[in-house]
């Protein structure tokens, strides 16, 4: 009885140490993945000479919409429309926002 209890305790201890070690490895991997990474102070982008403050919950993504090899700044927003801006020379000042169209109408994903 005492031997089996000791074995169970030993097994639990080994399993616990092994789990801790795995967790430690994952943390180290995470830390390594972020080593040397940091960001410059944020720069606010503009479109058509204005801050992009007209959209509710803007969700940006860069994507080459027209296949010309240059990425557009695509902007989703809470009401379900999608806008795109073509780039300017410095990559920070984008051209004015243009609504994407679907079958001759404004592209709009339904929202509540």
């Amino acid at each position, binding site marked *: 009885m005492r031997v089996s209890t000791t074995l169970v305790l030993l097994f639990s201890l080994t399993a616990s140490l092994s789990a801790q070690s795995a967790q430690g490895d994952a943390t180290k991997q995470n830390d390594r993945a972020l080593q040397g990474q940091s*960001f410059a102070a944020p720069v606010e982008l503009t479109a058509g000479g204005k801050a992009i403050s007209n959209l509710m919950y803007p969700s940006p993504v860069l994507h080459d919409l027209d296949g010309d090899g240059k990425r557009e700044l695509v902007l989703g927003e809470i009401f379900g429309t999608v806008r795109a801006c073509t780039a300017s020379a410095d990559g920070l000042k984008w051209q004015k926002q243009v609504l994407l169209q679907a079958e001759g109408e404004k592209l709009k994903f339904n929202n509540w």
Partner: protein
Amino acid sequence: MCPQFVDFDADGHTDIITATYEGTVFISRGSHKGWGKPEHLIDAAGEYLVLSLYYDMEEDTYKNAKRSPEGQSNPKDHCVSAMVWDWDADGDFDILLGAKEGRLYLRMNHGKPGSPKFDTTNQLLRAGGEDFNVPGGLTAPRLVDWDADGLKDLVCGSFKGGVYFYRNVGEKKAPKFAKPVALISPGVCQPSDLRFPNSGCYADPVDYDGDGDLDLLVGGYCSVAPKKRILDVKEKARLKELVAKTSSLSKEMNVILSKHAADTSDMSKEEGRKAFEILRALKPYRENREAWGKVWAERRTFQPTGSRTAGVWLYRRIAKETAAVQPR
């Protein structure tokens, strides 16, 4: 909303996948003619892809949906983002559904490219041994190999500010995520600070400047804390008067509403809007709103309120030794 550009239906044209606050997933199919009208993506049973809470547009109300695996009960979550990804590397797109509350769910696809058959239940994902839960809520995941180890990781913005990295520590056919690490920490923006996004953050990890490393494009809000004023005795007395005046005008408004406002409970949205327009045109309503606005404007000079402005920001990746100080 977080649109994803991907050839979902394998026809050689890029499509748009997204979810809205309706709680469902949409596709706008691309073709040589341009974008198609949005359609709902459906599961193998022909039902919309939803979490446990969604907005029924026909009945104009929130509804609960039973989409938990048998014997389980997923939290009451509301889908606000979607991203397709070949989770198990079997050649078709599975889909991740992001919840407003911060959790992330998976629907496996048992079909084939161009004819999907999504599971009818949502599998709650885990990260670092716990339920996947973006600190601050709002999972709008973006897929990217952030650490260049050959496995796709997730980068998620947070409703309460910040951007989080979820490292994929699994295998190509079996992704597994480590606990989140903040790439951008949440912070408070003071009036004198440089503006930065500190709420409602949607992030896109992308090599913005073409220098070979991944930067972060972040849409969201910059909420600026108010600058408090120290009032002298006279100002304190005036503020007290204004607070009382605001309160009495609000009470008067309640009386006006109880006398003139229509019961909108059985009205359609359009009828409700018309009833409100009629109310707004009434003299007592207009006079009260005008007076309230003036008092409130003066009150704000003594009690400044914060501001909240939307925008899109670029965080360029730089070497650590030359890094700028992160927002607090």
